[in-house]
């Protein structure tokens, strides 16, 4: 079969798609936490996407993405049997679960639920540990993967901004709620928009729960060459692509990242005038 051929395409929420495509190398070399870089057309940008899942027997790789710009829009228009032009991966490091871990709190906001999914699987299924999950979205229709996560997680707590599903509130309310249910956690993994990860980190710092975040800054090559994804980590400069993408949240300078991620907002809008802009 041809590399990068799309085998299964599903729309899993508003503007949100799941693709399974054929790529034996990525499928067999993947560990949870890694990402890939893809390009859809020859004029296209290279964009990073977290690998949501793999099927090592069938050599398939899963990505989940929301249409937020030109490249994801072009990607969403590919059909089953189409070939994704370029896919490079798996990139970055997998997340290694510290020895002695018994219980983990996993927090996913919006599209951050997709990259959280392989980590939930890793912890709940591969390591057979307690995995409690807090999921947050603006409203019910924007939740993704809730059933798949509910099947494997120990407890799932849903929070929406408008109360249309689960509890009304933010994921930070969800963390407080999970803890109020007499749960104790060795550490927390939080993935979502940068502002959400920053808010979670401020809370877990107070609660004294070690926390990891998976970063998704602007990247080009993804191999440590361009340095576009660099940010301040403690007193050091790190490249998210080769040093991460998962980092100890307490050392991440979120303000640095927020500003750097906004650099091309104007050009991104010029290129893509999508419905949700």
């Amino acid at each position, binding site marked *: 079969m041809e590399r990068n051929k799309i085998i299964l395409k599903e729309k899993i929420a508003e503007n949100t798609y799941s693709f399974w495509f054929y790529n034996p190398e990525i499928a067999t070399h993947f560990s949870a936490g890694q990402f890939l870089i893809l390009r859809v057309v020859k004029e296209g940008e290279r964009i990073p996407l977290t690998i949501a899942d793999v099927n090592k027997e069938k050599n398939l790789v899963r990505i989940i993405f929301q249409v937020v710009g030109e490249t994801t829009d072009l990607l969403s228009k590919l059909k089953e049997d189409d070939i994704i032009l*370029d896919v490079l991966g798996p990139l970055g490091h997998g997340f290694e679960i510290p020895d002695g871990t018994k219980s983990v709190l996993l927090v996913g906001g919006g599209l951050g639920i997709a990259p959280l999914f392989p980590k939930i699987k890793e912890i709940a299924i591969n390591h057979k540990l307690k995995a409690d999950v807090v999921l947050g979205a603006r409203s019910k229709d924007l939740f993704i993967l809730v059933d798949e996560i509910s099947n494997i997680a120990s407890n799932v707590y849903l929070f929406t901004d408008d109360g249309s599903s689960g509890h009304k509130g933010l994921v930070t309310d969800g963390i407080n709620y999970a803890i109020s249910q007499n749960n104790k956690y060795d550490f927390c993994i939080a993935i979502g928009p940068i502002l959400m990860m920053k808010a979670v980190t401020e809370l877990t710092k107070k609660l004294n729960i070690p926390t990891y975040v998976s970063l998704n800054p602007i990247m080009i090559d993804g191999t440590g*060459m361009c*340095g*576009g994804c660099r940010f301040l980590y403690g007193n050091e400069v790190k490249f998210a692509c080769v040093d991460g993408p998962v980092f100890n949240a307490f050392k991440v300078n979120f303000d640095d990242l927020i*500003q750097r991620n906004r*650099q091309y907002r104007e050009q991104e809008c010029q290129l893509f005038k999508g419905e949700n802009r």
Partner: protein
Amino acid sequence: MRIEPKMQDPEVRINNFEEVNLGYTDEEAIAEAQRCRLCGACVKGCPVGIDIPAFVNSIAKGKFRQAIDIIRQFSVLPAVCGRVCPQENQCEKECILSRKGEPINIGALERFVADKFSEKETFDIPKVGKSAGIIGSGPAGLTAAYELRKAGFDVTIYESLHAPGGVLRYGIPNFRLPDKIIDKEVDYLLSLGVKLQLNFLIGKTVYINELLEIHDGLLIATGAGLPSRLNIPGENGVGVYLANEFLTRINLMHAYEFPIYHTPIKKFSKVVVVGGGNVAMDSARVARRLGADVTIVYRREEEDMPARREERIHAKEEGINFITLANPVEIILDEYKNVKQIKLEKMKVSGKGLDGRNKIEGTLEYFTIDADAVITAIGQTPNRIIQENVKGLNLDSHGRVIVDENLKTSLNRVWAAGDIVTGAATVILAMGEAKRAAADMIKTL
């Protein structure tokens, strides 16, 4: 009189990304070649040992086909080398006529015949039943692939990016080395039966030990792509680029053609480039073409700059300012972390170093330059992905792969060549090493 090829007018070329050097006409090439005394001194300045007098003499006689055939015996990348080699420090430095300041324009002649023949040379390739994997499609990788293929090896090149060429592709701008020249050189290799596997990052996509199962030997030619940083306050500001990012956006991703190409680059008005090498010149000249007022700052004197002379001259013709003996100490940002100014320390010369360049020291006097972007081009170090993902590969303290006199690494059946061994150097040096490595692979395997 040394004949210089015609150049695009500076006023015109600062508005385009077309090649600056327009190359020789037949008449110019013949006239320049006829100045050659055929002494052969130049050959010892060439890292790949091209029989320069022979090919120059062929041009002098109008036998252009013969000239390119001679070069091809030594180099698979003549159209590239004719454009990017620092000839003034190599072949042309040794030229007997350089004493009068007018060495034969060997680079321009090489380029002339390389461009003249686009058809592929074919030759019988022996069948030896051996297989080589080449990691990296830069100058070293392409050269080794050519040598190994000629000797009858099945050759596969693995490249992590979506286009081949390595630094030739992502690093060197089109106005100096057009994409179609790289394509032509790579197509030639492919026509000889070399296989190219794009989007493969060895150490991640597959591992070295897996490649050793399908190849008899491997060559690591992954180059020096990791940018060095200034390590000064403000360097993560918005508008601060490592030159690699700036040039990759332009060269690999064609951001200057945004929005036809989708990768963006901002339009800056005042750009400061830090560094004195070819990467600094390229960055400055790209920024100029994007419409900025550009200043290069360099901590030593201009004569110490490692950049090719032609690039320095072209940069100046294009209106780029040079400030020397100035060392950045801080990039000053506004409240939104955008670049506002760069603060520099004035330096002074304090004697000569062992390498003949000026030594410098700080004066504790400072000044600032307004800027909305700063591009740092202060060197690159070896890529690390392979090294981090294989056991038993010996490295030095700079992360370079340690090799023996035949360019063999500490791993059985694995060789290394180019910048991954030497640290960031030139295209032609990488090619010379790659030829030696390939020769040993052919002999050993």
